[in-house]
């Protein structure tokens, strides 16, 4: 397990009695982007939620930087360096952009929180002009950037993004994917990405994981999955 920032072994997870993810195992090295793809209902989001502690883990192991964190509740995982960005409702719509950022830095000391907010505003300057706007008045792309900024405030080492480009116009989705590459290349973060628009996401990733009916059907370099005509055609709509 040493050398990997995240290791998942034989993970079985779901919601209550609904067993969704079966025997999932994979490793993720520091500074990589891993994209999880697969058809609707294949368990992609559940796998992410199980890693973060939101879905129920029945058995298996989640190891972060060599420590077993399988049973840690989400707020503890958030404190030790994991971040999870939900697919929807990932910002407080009724709060202003500034208030959202203050909430993202809730557990930090005031001076540290101020510095971190300043840092993320420098990374995403578009938010500087909208600090007093309510989040609900932002466009879909701006909202996702705010959500990313909120995630970054805690300086997480591993960021898990659940369909961040869902419901976005293609041009905005492309811009957002560039921001995700920026997370890896400039901020040296490790990213797990769950995506519906498989091709664009796989193109920016280092590794890929294909899930089919709750099981991992492919695990390896994303280039390998992009070039696998049979899997691509069958499960990802790629030609």
């Amino acid at each position, binding site marked *: 397990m040493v050398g990997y920032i995240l290791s998942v072994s034989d993970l079985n997870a779901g919601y209550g009695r609904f067993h969704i993810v079966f025997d999932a195992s994979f490793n993720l090295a520091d500074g990589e982007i891993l994209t999880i793809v697969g058809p609707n209902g294949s368990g992609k989001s559940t796998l992410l939620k199980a890693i973060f502690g939101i879905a129920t883990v029945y058995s298996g192991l989640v190891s972060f930087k060599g420590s077993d964190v399988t049973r840690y509740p*989400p707020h503890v995982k*958030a404190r030790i360096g994991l971040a999870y960005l939900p697919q929807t409702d990932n910002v407080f719509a009724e709060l202003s952009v500034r208030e959202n950022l203050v909430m993202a830095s809730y557990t930090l000391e005031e001076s540290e929180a101020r510095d971190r907010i300043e840092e993320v505003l420098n990374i995403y300057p578009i938010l500087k002009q909208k600090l007093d706007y309510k989040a609900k008045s932002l466009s879909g792309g701006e909202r996702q950037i705010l959500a990313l900024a909120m995630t970054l405030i805690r300086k997480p080492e591993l960021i898990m993004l659940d369909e961040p480009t869902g419901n976005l116009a293609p041009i905005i989705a492309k811009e957002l994917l560039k921001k995700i590459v920026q997370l890896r290349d400039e901020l040296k973060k490790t990213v797990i990405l769950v995506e519906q628009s498989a091709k664009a996401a796989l193109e920016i990733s280092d590794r890929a994981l294909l899930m089919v009916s709750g099981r991992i059907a492919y695990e390896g370099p994303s280039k390998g999955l992009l070039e696998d005509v049979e899997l691509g055609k069958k499960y990802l709509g790629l030609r």
Partner: protein
Amino acid sequence: MVLPSPEFIIYSIAYGSSLALLCLGLTLTYMTTKVPNFAHGTLAIVGATVTLMLIDRVYYQFRGDPLYYSLYIAAPLIAFFVVGLVALTEYLLVLRPLVRKGIGIIGLMIAALAFDIILVNILTMTLHLAPSEYFGKLIGQSLKGFDARVSLADITTTFSRLAMPVVAVILTVTLHLFLTRTKFGIAMRASIENPSLARVLGIDVDRVYIVSWFLAGGLAGVAGSFLSFIIESVKPAAGSLVIVSIFAGSILGGLGSIYGALLGGFLVGFMEPMATIMLQNALSEFLGRTVIITQYQRLFSLLVVIVVLLLAPQGLTGLNYREVIGRVRRVVGVG
């Protein structure tokens, strides 16, 4: 048509102000636990009872003395803390354990009703079984005679009726500043809007709910303290009457916005006596004899509930004002 007197308008403003605070509290608790707290009216009566006891045991002897005016600070303040704790008890001992067990909304509503009945019985026992040397003199009596009278020009009113709107404005501004300028206040708004995201960010949502319930109870205590001078007599079961108006104001406000609750509460509280007295005057004039309908005052609130739920279930805060203004403009032929 005979219009209401200035004294009656002042009374209506005072009643509207106290109802605004009560609706604010009900909405705050509804937004956190998603259960309409049927005990909220009785919480106000606990505040009224605290005031009654305070007059009975302490202030009775100071009537006519300038010191008597300190009652208007001491009573709401003590009521704030006492009723805040009672509301907190309801949340911690009754509702929170049920929410954690996954009990649905129907179960929670029945639990809130049960707590209301228990509270009424505790109040009854406190007032009637306590030795008569304690709290003996005023039980079941009207406190109207214990409200200091104030004369302004030709208008004679009472101190509580002038103080209530001022207190309501001060509390509203304080709460607004708390919710928008403090980190914990913003966390309260965040936790109410999206508790799961708030938890992911490390906010202690349960602590936020605890503070919300205490605040809601505290505001009910302050409102009840002033209501004790308005209602006919401080009786344990009087909460069942007030709760109708509280629900009407909260539903008019939209049940999802504390600012809507303030507005809805004030409008219902102000209009309930005003509409009743105006209808009474009109009926008396039409029939040529005196007609008394003030005992049916709550019908106005029930009517508000029915109309709002039928026509605008989202309440005032859910209305599309541009559309409404556009419609009005078209009707009056402007723009």
